[in-house]
């Protein structure tokens, strides 16, 4: 039998008196773009952090292609082919754009020893250049990442997530604070990855327009639990979802 790419089973996480994530289960199929939406405080980011090793879930399990990855560290998960972006800006501000991207790939090639004595760029410069070209920030190649505009940094952040050729990328509010032109660019890039390389996405996003047009399937969280699941059209007309948003 074939396993789903990612399967989440009964994951729960509690902080003090707050049940941030409550018994969440879902699957992510190879090649799909899954949206994860919900009102503020519904547990989306906590769930992400449980999936990505930042937090240990209190209970439940996560499996990648059928093998258990619960409790693995973020770096181990990355080496298994899971990329991610962050809600807040997450680049290395004093390093150049190209160095940011090379760092995102270097741990995937060679050994500790070859990384110390081998080529300083670990042979990744070409791939990194191609990637920043793909995200249309080549002209910023040698600028410190911190000097880029917000939207440019978001693109860089996304580029870094793709450097290691991941099979699954989790995007945490990729559209937040990005202007319309950039947004179009970003969506187009993500869709291109999806169609060209079959990269699978899970996207947290508040920008409904963006989510609805990007994703093939959407899961809605409220107060830590899954309250709805379906295509964008189904979600748009789901009364529970509308109530949850209005109630919040």
């Amino acid at each position: 039998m074939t396993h789903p790419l990612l399967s989440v089973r009964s994951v729960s996480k509690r902080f003090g008196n707050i049940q941030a994530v409550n018994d969440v289960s879902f699957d992510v199929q190879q090649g799909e773009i899954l949206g994860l939406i919900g009102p503020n405080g519904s547990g989306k980011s906590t769930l992400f952090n449980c999936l990505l090793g930042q937090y240990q879930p209190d209970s439940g399990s996560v499996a990648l292609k059928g093998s258990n990855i619960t409790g693995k560290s973020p770096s181990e998960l990355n080496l298994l082919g899971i990329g991610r972006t962050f809600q807040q800006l997450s680049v290395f501000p004093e390093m150049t754009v190209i160095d940011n991207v090379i760092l995102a790939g270097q741990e995937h090639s060679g050994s500790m020893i070859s990384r110390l004595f081998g080529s300083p760029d670990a042979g990744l410069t070409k791939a990194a250049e191609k990637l920043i070209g793909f995200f249309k920030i080549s002209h910023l190649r040698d600028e410190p990442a911190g000097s880029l505009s917000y939207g440019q940094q978001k693109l860089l952040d996304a580029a870094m997530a793709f450097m290691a050729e991941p099979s699954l990328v989790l995007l945490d509010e990729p559209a937040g604070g990005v202007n319309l032109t950039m947004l179009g660019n970003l969506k187009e890039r993500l869709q291109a990855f999806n169609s060209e390389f079959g990269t699978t996405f899970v996207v947290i996003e508040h920008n409904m327009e963006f989510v609805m047009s990007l994703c093939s399937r959407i899961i809605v969280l409220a107060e830590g639990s899954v309250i709805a699941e379906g295509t964008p059209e189904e979600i748009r007309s789901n009364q529970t979802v509308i109530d949850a948003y209005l109630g919040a």
Partner: protein
Amino acid sequence: MKFTKRNLWLLIGLALLILAPIGQGRYIVYTLTSWLVFSIAAMGLNLTLGYAGQISLAQSAFMAVGAYITALLTLNGIHWIVAMPIAVLSSFVLGLLIGFPALRVKGHFLAFVTLAFTTLVFLVLRNEDWLTGGPYGLSGMPRPDFGLFNTGKNINFYYFTVFIFVIFSLLMYQIVRSPWGRAFKGLRENEIRAESLGVNTRRITLLAFAIGSAAGGLAGSLMTPLVQFIEPGSFALLHSLRILLMVIVGGAGFFFGPVVGAGVVIMLPEVLRFTEGYYLMIYAVTVVVLIIFCPKGLVGLGEIISRKILKKKEVRKDFEQGAKL
């Protein structure tokens, strides 16, 4: 190696190092040697602090470890060339052990742990006199003799130190520009992001700490034959702070920042000697002013100035890379 502007500067620097002691008295030679020794220690701390962002107040303790191990071995007839690697390796291993707290705690707390370690090392050196000579210290350590080249004379020892310094700098340069160096910087600038990109931050933190410590051990290993007398007080907490000051004053995160910083910290008392009792005050005020107005240290300041003077973009980038490596 391509013949670039940066390489030209490095060659000029090397030539100056070779020419500097010629015709100078022993004091200048001694001071220059001690500058290079402290530069090695400070460059090590710069890797830990400036590149990897881990605050350590233990560099003088690692110097002590290197110095005492070298002293005990060479006093027992073992050649420096054998004693030194043992001293460096011991510092490295100890650095790994002390680095473990760095995995649990960050920032200030790491500073406290390393501070405590420095004082503990001092107490052991002072109290265990059966091994370390206690408060009297150890003396009479020989300077290494390489057959054709005996470092007994001060000037010879200076060139020997230059040789070690150059080898060390090349090694350090290799580390800093390797993917390891990039991972260290990633750790400093955004640890969580680095980890999400597959960097094993635990291992990289430990390595940054241990390599920096090993450099401290190497500096100590040179200190022993330089001064030919070591005692616990020379490695007390104050000296860790002094090395930290060298890194900050010179410019943390710049490859040659600590070398500049060590020069300033060692030479400044001498330059300000005409102010008699006031030089430490001037020194303290200078540090505060420097930190307030130029938090990136002297090399950082130099970069800003040269960027303003050399408006041409090509030149600027070249310099920037050269300084930051």
